[in-house]
């Protein structure tokens, strides 16, 4: 089968294992991430694994894209150690504060800059934002179809993938034509562990960095100012749920329960 040109979008997120240390800055309404290490968004690891597996089946090339601060270079180096062929960091202060659409615009510009793609793979959602919007928005901007929450994936022929997508109610098997964007779920594969050999192989590969000046992007549509959605407030939800223990004989407990449910007359035969 012909080699595929595969793009994988990844987002560096605060390590989920340290999520109990995340706090919200009351003034800026942003997450305070200081001291919490960044990792590849967990579902993006599955996206990368899916890309690498397809490449291993029929050669091809996997390029990773990320819009993130310069510190994300380490995260992108990790994707190279896992088996990506090249990594592109889209980093510029003017990108900061962008919502999902502004982010998708920057990613779309980065992808266009680097060529044409048969397949674009994203994680279904990010661990921190969790909107699940960037993938579909990117597909719209690139003018290609998309499928979300892919949980099984197989190359069918030169121009088709066999995919299984899952929603709340059903699983569907689909024959999908390339070019295509998919977002993947954790069921799609088991991401490989880092290996020393992969780390050494990454020495020969570089992270390419582009700023806004390098990209075909309209500055009015990126960053905080170019974002149609703005965060008005961010707060920690305080749970007000309480457990109340009903005591007494089974009959007494039953009556109390019916009383709580507003069914006393009917239930207790009063």
């Amino acid at each position: 089968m012909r080699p595929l040109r595969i793009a994988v979008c990844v987002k560096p997120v605060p390590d989920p294992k340290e999520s109990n240390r995340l706090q919200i800055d009351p003034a800026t309404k942003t997450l305070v991430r200081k001291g919490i290490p960044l990792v590849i968004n967990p579902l993006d690891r599955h996206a990368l694994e899916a890309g690498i597996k397809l490449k291993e089946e029929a050669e091809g090339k996997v390029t990773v894209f990320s819009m993130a601060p310069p510190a994300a270079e380490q995260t992108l180096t990790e994707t190279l150690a896992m088996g990506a062929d090249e990594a592109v960091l889209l980093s510029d202060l003017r990108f900061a504060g962008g919502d999902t659409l502004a982010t998708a615009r920057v990613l779309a510009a980065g992808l266009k800059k680097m060529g044409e793609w048969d397949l674009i793979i994203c994680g279904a959602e990010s661990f921190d934002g969790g909107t699940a919007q960037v993938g579909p928005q990117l597909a719209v901007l690139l003018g290609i179809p998309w499928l979300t929450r892919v949980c099984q994936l197989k190359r069918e022929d030169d121009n088709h993938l066999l995919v299984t997508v899952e929603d709340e109610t059903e699983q569907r098997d689909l024959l999908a034509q390339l070019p295509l964007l998919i977002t993947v779920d954790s069921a799609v594969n088991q991401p490989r562990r880092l290996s020393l050999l992969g780390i050494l192989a990454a020495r020969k590969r570089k992270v390419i960095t582009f700023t806004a000046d390098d990209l075909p992007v309209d500055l009015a549509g990126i960053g905080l100012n170019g974002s149609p959605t703005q965060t008005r407030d961010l707060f920690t939800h305080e749970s007000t749920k309480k457990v109340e223990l009903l005591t007494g004989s089974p009959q007494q407990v039953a009556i109390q329960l019916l009383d709580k449910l507003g069914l006393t007359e009917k239930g207790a035969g009063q």
Partner: protein
Amino acid sequence: MNFEFTAEQELLKKAAREVAEEVIAPRVEEMEKTKELPEDFYPIMAEAGFTGILVPEEYGGSNLGTLAAILVVEEISRVSAALGTSFQVHCLGYLPLVRLGSPELKAKYLPGVAAGQYIATGAITEASGGSDPTGGMTTTAVRDGDDWIINGRKCFISNNKTANCTWVTAVTKDQPKKEFTTFFVDKSMEGYKTGRMESKAGFHGLDNGDLIFQNCRVPHSNIILGEGKGITVAMTSIGRMGRMGMAAVGLGVIKASLDAAVKFANERVLYGKPIAHLQAVQFKIAEMTYLLEASRLLVYRAAWMTDQNVPDKELAPYVAMAKLYATDAAIKASDLAVEILGGYGVVEEYHVERYLRDARMIWAAAGTGDIMKLTVARMHLNG
């Protein structure tokens, strides 16, 4: 000065942590019961590329150096001090080949080491003791044509069952002065056997005990460095890897103790709030933290000096300080963790009692804390 790890070293730590957390952690409980090293531990370490971390690239290794090896030992030891020790002993077992072995010996063994086919150890200690090997060594090697015949028993050898190759030091001349020679022996050679196994307080999962050499026939070409240079070979192995390796095991134990104590302190509620709010607990967490940081500085610097090729004699006190301090810190930190956990501190399910037992094991391995002090004192004093 630059105290940051390189991007590559950070990735290496992460790779080792993934193996530790995903593969080793689920088996620790079983290892505590069976005291057996998991059969797939070395295949997994080989697949990850760790078994040949000190092996030159031309023999299939990565040649990343001592600091890199130490970082892997630390991460593995954070989950299992037993397996961290096993791995560092493997490294000290083949290091003499890398540094002092003939091209023939390197070609014969190092590709297999890198591929995980050869798991190594080193054998100098006998029943008479390890820190004064020349005084009490009774293992002998006698020339027989192109071979040597080794007879003797080595004890307290880690990986004595798992390893299928080892360096072994033997007396090769008695008069006018005792001479020692170090040979590299593999299990295809007749007369090389595993002897009794020790049952120990900690390091459950690490095999440790006797190696028996009974008319073991070894080719002359398997001598490392040359006849009469056996102690140099052994001390290179122990001084450039063994002691630092045990210090790195200590780092892992301290970090594991700190993590367990912090988690418990944040979750355990007494008097209506987590015990982390109690100053007595805060003091203990602070002490564990600076013990870890100070130990790391000493250990990483000693490893860095090793990679700078500082000669054995000049390096020895820095390695000794690292080993001594990290060991004492591991004992102290794990003890503090047991205290913070109170009654849970001695419950197996909470692991910290294991950290304390393992920390105690480090003290004697590769030279006791007191021997380390003698090495440090020799920086300034004769004797």
